[in-house]
């Protein structure tokens, strides 16, 4: 404890995270899922598009298919691996983009106040007024369907959420005495923004973004279901769930397996978010 290295720097942040077993488990789950998705072609899981009409809706284990086949006789395991590529990309990439843009806009609004604040926040309010999925549909409808469209539309949907949180957090931070103390010490505006406001606004945004990732996998699935995201036969966990509903009674595993994966990944993102919150907040760190 007290006899640690001369400069502990930020090691304790990692150690705080490692103490949170749920978060560590969640991170491990996500890493494994991501690895399987990224390395899908080399996992030996087979071709996700190869349809075997003779073996449709096969239960797990049948005919050499570890997790069975779907209603077109395609290997479920391969489709889950390949589907992970789309679903994780849709969950993670737009959230990262929206976090960066939303954080910048929200901090600008909260720090500059006045007219800049009004313009930014009223614009975001307009976006905010639309239901999340409706707005995504509107954006996706204008562009050609595909994964890029999906990423763009979800990014636009998320910006107001992150922007608002960032602005609120910025307002809270700028009213703290340490901001005035920094000014009294002669700090420049940019130093105050980068060294005093950003680090204190950063952790709630990271936590929020992490939990959003789980949700965005579900939203992305919805877009695919509506035909605005990736197009069949490309696999996507959400699309797999919606395809499987037709054979829900005969072959529940076609729906349940991707559903369980979405649930597990979403939960994992939430646990990861909790762990990050504790690890990123210096006040929760123990000595």
């Amino acid at each position, binding site marked *: 404890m007290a006899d640690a290295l001369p400069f502990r720097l930020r090691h304790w942040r990692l150690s705080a995270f490692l103490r949170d077993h749920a978060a560590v488990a969640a991170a491990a789950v996500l890493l494994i899922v991501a690895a399987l998705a990224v390395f899908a072609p080399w996992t030996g899981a087979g071709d996700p598009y190869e349809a075997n009409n003779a073996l449709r809706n096969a239960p797990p284990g049948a005919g050499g298919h570890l997790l069975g086949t779907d209603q077109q006789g395609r290997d479920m395991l391969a489709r889950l691996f390949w589907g992970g590529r789309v679903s994780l990309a849709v969950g993670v990439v737009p959230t990262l983009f929206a976090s960066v843009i939303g954080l910048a806009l929200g901090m600008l609004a909260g720090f500059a106040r006045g007219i800049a604040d009004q313009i930014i926040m009223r614009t975001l309010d307009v976006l905010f007024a639309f239901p999340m999925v409706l707005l995504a549909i509107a954006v996706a409808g204008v562009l050609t369907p595909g994964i890029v469209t999906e990423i763009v539309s979800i990014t636009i949907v998320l910006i107001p959420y992150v922007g608002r949180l960032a602005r609120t957090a910025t307002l809270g931070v700028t009213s703290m*005495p*340490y901001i*005035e*103390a920094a*000014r*009294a*010490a*002669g700090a420049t505006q940019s130093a105050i923004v980068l060294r*005093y406001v950003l680090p204190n606004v950063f952790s709630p945004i990271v936590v929020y973004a992490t939990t959003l990732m789980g949700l965005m996998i579900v939203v992305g699935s919805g877009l695919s279901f509506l035909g605005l995201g990736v197009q069949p036969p490309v696999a996507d966990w959400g699309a797999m769930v919606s395809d499987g509903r037709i054979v829900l009674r005969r072959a529940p595993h076609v729906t349940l397996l991707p559903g369980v994966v979405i649930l597990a990944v979403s939960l994992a993102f939430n646990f990861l978010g909790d762990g990050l919150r504790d690890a990123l907040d210096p*006040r929760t760190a123990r000595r």
Partner: protein
Amino acid sequence: MSDAVLDVRGLRTRFGPEKGGLVAVDGVSFMLRRGRTTALVGESGSGKSATAQSIMGLIDPPGRVTGGQVLYRGQDLLTLDEAAMREIRGARIGMVFQDPLTSLNPALSIGSQIAETITAHEDVSHAEAQRRAVQLLEHVGVADAARRAADYPHHFSGGMRQRALIAAAIACRPEIIIADEPTTALDVTVQAKILRLLHDLQQEMGASLLLITHDLGVVAAMADEVAVMYAGRVVEQADVDTLFHRPGHPYTRALLSCVMDIGDGRDTPLNPIAGAPPDLRTPPPGCRFAPRCPMAEAACLSWQPQDIAVSATHTVACRRVAEVLQDG
């Protein structure tokens, strides 16, 4: 007087909108002498902190300084632009705040925060600034400074945080230190140590200290000169002995009689000042203390206060000062 490091003249600061706002600092004048300590005393809301913020140019809109001068080395700080003022803040005038808990950035290590002040004003490397931060921490009495510089504010106790804030305030060896209620948030035992530290540092650097406090005990221990503020105005100015032994303003007398003496028996009644400070949105037209003053006459309610010189170094803004002193 030539040894004035900071000469505040007729400072006026208002908060809030033009209509419905209030004048928090209303024509405040006082002087800070080289190497000496001036205390600004008053109740909460009397404009002490607003005065300090005005000097530092830290009044946020819609509040603003509407009049007066703050002369530092013959230069009026109120006329400086933000960039020029930034070079004064932290470098020429260091400031120590009331609440050490919230005056430190929780996301930055103590050493980095002190180094931040140094790099803001001097062209030194980050490593050099860090090294000096450690020296400063040592200097203000933080044990094991090299290791503790890497700690974050929440690792520090209240007293240690205030030491760190003081270290940051003196990092560039300022000529003036403004300490706004530096010990109010601290334990009594720690208070004495922090005051001792401030005093020693001031002596050593030959700096002038503007000490803002409501604690007359602190004033007696630290100050050379005292300005007593009430409702945005300075009601009495004197050297510390005169103020304690020959107070000329009824408000000063009332403040002094509020102080408990350990020698007092339990039966000795406390003497709180009757009434409450005026609402500054609608200040009393005449002497602002008149509504609470035991010596007030009808004329006081319309008397426009002016500083009456009792001696060369003692001014009192009370039309009945002669009677107050006689009564003494």
